[in-house]
């Protein structure tokens, strides 16, 4: 559930929290990849190690 306070930031763009409600969810693409491919360290996605990058062909 999106907290109605969040719509305050965009109320000038037409988001009236009494009329609009929201549902929010997030998925870390890196975390999903970890689960799917068994990667053992999330930092690998941000280090640019060629031995890691070249596995994704």
């Amino acid at each position: 559930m999106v907290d109605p306070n969040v719509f305050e930031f965009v109320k000038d763009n037409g988001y009236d929290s009494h009329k609009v409600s929201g549902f929010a969810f997030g998925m870390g693409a890196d975390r999903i990849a970890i689960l799917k491919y068994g990667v053992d360290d999330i930092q690998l996605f941000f280090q640019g190690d060629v031995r890691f990058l070249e596995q994704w062909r």
Partner: protein
Amino acid sequence: MRLSPNWIRDFVDLPDDTHRLADDLTSIGIAVEGISGSGDGTVFEMEIGTNRPDAMNHYGVAREASALYNKPLKPVEARLPKASNAASFPIEIEDPKGCARFTARMLRNVRITPSPKNVINRLGLLDQRPINNAVDATNYTLWEIGKPTHVFDLDLLEGGRIIVRQARDGETLKTLDGVERTLSNEDLVVADARKPVGLAGVMGGYDTMITDKTRNILIESAWWDPGIVRKMSKRHSLHTDASHRFERGADFESTVLSTNRVAELILNSGGGELAGEIIDVIARRIDQAPIALYLSEVQRILGERLPEREIVRILEHLGFSVLAEGHDSGEFTVHVPSWRLDVEREIDLIEEIARLHGYDKFTNRLPAFSGAVVETPHAAKDQKVRSTLLALGYNEAVSLSFISRRDAERFSPAIALELANPQSEEASVMRTSMIPGMLDMLAHNLNRGIDQVRLFEAGQVFESVGQEAKELKRVLLGASAAALESQMPASSRLDVSQNEHAAASAVFRCLKGDVEQLVAAFECGPVYFDAKVSDYYHPGRSARLVLEGSTVAQFGQLSPEIAAARKIRQDVYLAEIYLDRLYTRPLRQVRFRALPRYPAVERDFSFVFEDRVLFENIKQAATSLDIAELVNFVPAEIFRGRGIPAGSYSILLRGTFQSAERTLREDEVAQWSARIIKALEVVGGTLRAS
């Protein structure tokens, strides 16, 4: 933190299956991360959200379980004997903001002994060290109902009264951990008539603690302002179970019950008597405003019509009192219990309803959607950039969006957006350049013996412009010299001079070729290269690509000084492409060109030019002759050294002539060649005898 399901069972009926219990609690947001032990010795490792201090104890979780399983919740009561008469013990609160309420009571003729077995066992399950019956009583009460309390040796309190006040600059207090602390007037203390005896809400004093000589006890249970406790905890680097709870908001109404419960536990184990009635000083009330709840709003937010009875049941089980406004109005006034400082608005109540109803129990339904899927504006161009670079052998990498202020200043003239609460100096501004991240990644590879590395990152940089923040698309290439060299066919050197610069410039031209390949994917008008680049590039091994008056790319070898300062072991090359400008051009469309039917003729021109004459000038000289049949005009070889004056270079230019309609005649080609030679002499060239 650890909790014992067996202890929770003191207050509510729980399922026997502990795994089911753990899953059920987790599904309402009271997360059980691990289970250890078995039977009565089972322990739950809990992860309770920081906004739920009321659930950081057995009774709070029991309350949640009673709402979850629709079971009655046993109230906590302290059964005490009649109090004897006693002199009063005044409590003065000088800082009502810091301390809203201070409750105390005295016990006399108590024996300090080890706690009863069941108290020791229960504390042991939670990894709490038993000390003596008085201190353990406060610990037990903390874990039972979540209220931190403190016990003083009454006879060691001087002057027969307590004052809650600001400390005076320079006052000292030795806390229970034995550390002598110097206080300032920003600290809030519990003091007797002479001296501080406790750091409010954080830790009690050493000199007034319970020892085996203690006979008379003063129990304290107070409400402390969360902000003040947090600051003191930080200032003295003292984080305790007590401060942890006070920082998150204690229950204003629980001071009396907790005081009595501690008294009960001490009297039951150590004998003694209650001296005087409870002393309860309220400096100011902490009240929460009631909340208007509309069933229509519950339905609008949750998307489903929950029965009114279910809504009321959930809220009442959690301790909210629900009053209907009129009959069947769909409107309620809800009073928030004193332990739920996290609930302030109607939406908070709706979340409680959804949470206990069960997020997984809402009907699955797709939302209504009208509209089309729209491709993001640059999807095709991004795709082309990416596939071109991958095909060229670059690996795509992602680095962090924050860099240090120092790096921002080094690699970009733009003003960086500063983070309000940076975790470290290394990540304190939004990146104005992707270079620092790329250099770190190149170094990461080179330091691990990976010599050949070519990376690209497609992303954004951020600039502060006036009051606004601008996001600019870039792609940055980074490559080690070894990687670029390995792609070079051995015979393809342009500069055949025997010097170090020639070797390096060959590597530079490999990078230039990659940049040209990338730019060639776009429909660009006239472009030219010059040497005006940022100062972090090695002059002479770098260039800038200009398209219609604006810089579209700059690239070259990273200045060796910077590479050395960053401990990068090899020459590295970078190419910055400003996609926001490149993307103003459309992608190049494939247009069929008929294959040439007539042979091409090549002519070579060998010239010497002074260094100041750039290839752009040379090329311009030839192409501005508007010879339609001149289909190509490129440098084939460059030479500096023996036989060539210093400050000049020799260049072999290769022109290709071809017509779509006929075979070219020798005399035409000769004529065009003469014109070209003339034009090259005009821009300063000296024809060499060929």
